[in-house]
């Protein structure tokens, strides 16, 4: 055993030195993309979707490129922990010398890791970060994920218009950055729209039992339940609400976190009528989207979610920028080309970056109908 441990220490040393000595050569006709996704840990279900979406995009690009510019993907796992995210960023940027980084999965990790890329001058494209203060980190930081600040006001406006909401209850996860900041936006928008908030209830990440809160909510008889949650919790909330006898006409309204086939799969019948404001429209007839949903379902045997869709789109956006810059390794040129991305066709629709390098495309309000997401029309 002693020997084994000595070996381990030895191996550590060797691994580190090999990693340093073999600084990878950069080839000009292959663009190196670093992907930082949470493939294990608490956010694993999102990270895995993202990886699948990104992999599909890379495969399609490489198959189509022929002798043109190929993509060399390097997938790394941040284990849903910011510390590891930092380590992975340093490794990708300084060790592998990637041209761009796509990721990381979680906004909180992005706030810690993106300054590293900004300082060195490497483009980062967030494909799932929706919290505030991400692109503000610097002029190398982009994202193609519509923020809650864009999606939610639209959702509430549409819902108010079509359902005549007057009084609602806000229900959210208060120990998670995504769900908490979503709730803050909901609260502000609801107040601005003059909709009364009867009360607020919270849950914690990982909770599966929501009946105490839903029982309270039921007793307040709201017109709708406004919910900021990720899909793991969302499906439980939806099905338990119906089980507790909260009537179907009390709609449940959610944001980006709800936009996953898992909602319908896990909540089943109860998901009918749930309103989901989101960045990506599953049932969009945009040919790029139809093809994506088809290809993805064929390859992985399950339908894609928003995480996969945005990651897929992200790879194409970056590839587009690199191609128009005519370089696979000039980090600054790629960034400059990213700034110029305007109105390109993606599965998300016509896509541009705003002045602040955030996503600019129109959000969608969907409704679950007959076991499918469809555009909300009353």
């Amino acid at each position, binding site marked *: 055993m002693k020997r084994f441990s000595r070996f381990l220490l030895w191996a550590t040393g060797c691994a580190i030195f090999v990693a340093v000595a073999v600084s990878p050569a950069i080839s000009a006709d292959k663009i190196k993309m670093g992907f930082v996704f949470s493939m294990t840990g608490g956010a694993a*279900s999102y990270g895995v979707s993202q990886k699948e979406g990104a992999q599909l995009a890379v495969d399609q690009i490489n198959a189509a490129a022929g002798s043109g510019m190929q993509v060399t993907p390097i997938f790394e796992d941040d284990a849903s922990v910011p510390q590891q995210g930092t380590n992975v960023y340093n490794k990708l940027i300084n060790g592998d010398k990637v041209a761009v980084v796509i990721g990381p999965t979680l906004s909180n990790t992005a706030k810690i890791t993106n300054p590293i890329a900004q300082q060195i001058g490497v483009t980062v494209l967030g494909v799932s970060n929706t919290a505030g203060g991400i692109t503000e980190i610097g002029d190398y930081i982009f994202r193609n994920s519509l923020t809650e600040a864009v999606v939610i006001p639209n959702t509430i406006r549409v819902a108010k218009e079509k359902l005549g909401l007057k009084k609602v209850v806000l229900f959210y996860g208060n120990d998670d950055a995504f769900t908490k900041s979503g709730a803050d936006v909901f609260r502000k928008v609801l107040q601005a729209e003059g909709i009364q908030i009867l009360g607020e*209830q919270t*849950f914690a990440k990982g909770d*599966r039992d929501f009946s*105490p*809160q839903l029982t309270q909510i039921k007793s307040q008889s709201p017109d709708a339940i406004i919910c900021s949650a990720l899909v*793991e919790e969302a499906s439980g909330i939806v099905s338990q609400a119906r089980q507790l*006898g909260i009537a179907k006409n009390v709609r449940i309204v959610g944001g980006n976190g709800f936009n996953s086939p898992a909602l319908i799969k*896990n909540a*089943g019948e109860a998901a009918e009528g749930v309103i989901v404001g989101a960045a990506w429209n599953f049932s969009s007839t945009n040919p790029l989207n139809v093809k994506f949903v088809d290809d993805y379902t064929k390859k992985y045997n399950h339908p894609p979610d928003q995480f996969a869709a945005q990651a897929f789109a992200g790879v194409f956006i970056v590839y587009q920028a690199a191609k128009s810059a005519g370089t696979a390794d000039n980090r600054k040129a790629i960034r400059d080309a990213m700034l110029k991305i305007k109105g390109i066709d993606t599965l998300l629709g016509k896509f541009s970056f705003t002045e602040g390098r955030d996503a600019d495309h129109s959000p969608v309000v969907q409704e679950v109908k007959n076991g499918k997401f469809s555009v909300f029309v009353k």
Partner: protein
Amino acid sequence: MNLLAQQLVNGLFIGSVYGLFAVGYTLVFGVLDILNLAHAAVFTLGGLSAVWLVQAAGMSIWLAFPLATLLAGGLGLLINAAAFAPLRRRADSQFSGLISSIAMAIIFDAAALGLFGARSVRFPPGTVKVHVWQIAGVTITSLQVGIVLVATLLMLILTLFLQRSRTGKAIRTVAENERAAMLLGVNVSGIIAFTFFISSALGGAAGVLYGLYFDSLAPDMGRAIELKGLAVIILGGMGSIPGAILGGLAFGLSEVLTVAVSGTSNLRDAVAFTVLFAILLLRPSGLLGRGKLREA
């Protein structure tokens, strides 16, 4: 009034799930004085494998449930063989056992992730028929009643088994005094392995029931309940089986009542853990503990 009644029903239900989870935890602690932190991972694997049996292998839940329970019990044997048995003679087995069980938990988590994927899954709709009853404005489902019944039944069987059967008596002897048990001709290591089997089987059963009710199973579902399970066995008294059940109910009710009384859920977990903290200071042996501190 309806509101409060509904909340009490909610609390009793979730409390009995906590209790079932905690019974396995506390059984191992009662016998070995060791915390098995891989228990939550067994809970997860039990639930996920039952989903797999129903979904991919097309079994009825009535077959998948006992099979998954047995499988979880097998994991218990594995935990014992790989992580606890080799350490038993070590002076620091309380500490090192804790760590080796963490190692097993990591390995099981990885297995869950690799075998079943990161996404949340559920039992196919209609796996069990669910009726919803409205009694005086209080909603109860047949699934809830069934789960409480199954949990009660399992705990009754366990209690009777420990009190009446030969093996059960041997387990209690080992818990009381390992050396004495050995002198009495009890196969101590066999009994310990068997205890792990039962403990993990119960954990797996809890995972299946949990998954059946909440319709959402994922590799990290053990994480949230792990901490609560620890709180429950402290609350009830380490090593006490009725204590674990009572602790589960108490913890479930404290969560629900915090929501019901304060009208908001921000304080739910804070209250639960503050109560735990206070109980430790005022009555360290828990509600039904063996009435002695370690090393007293």
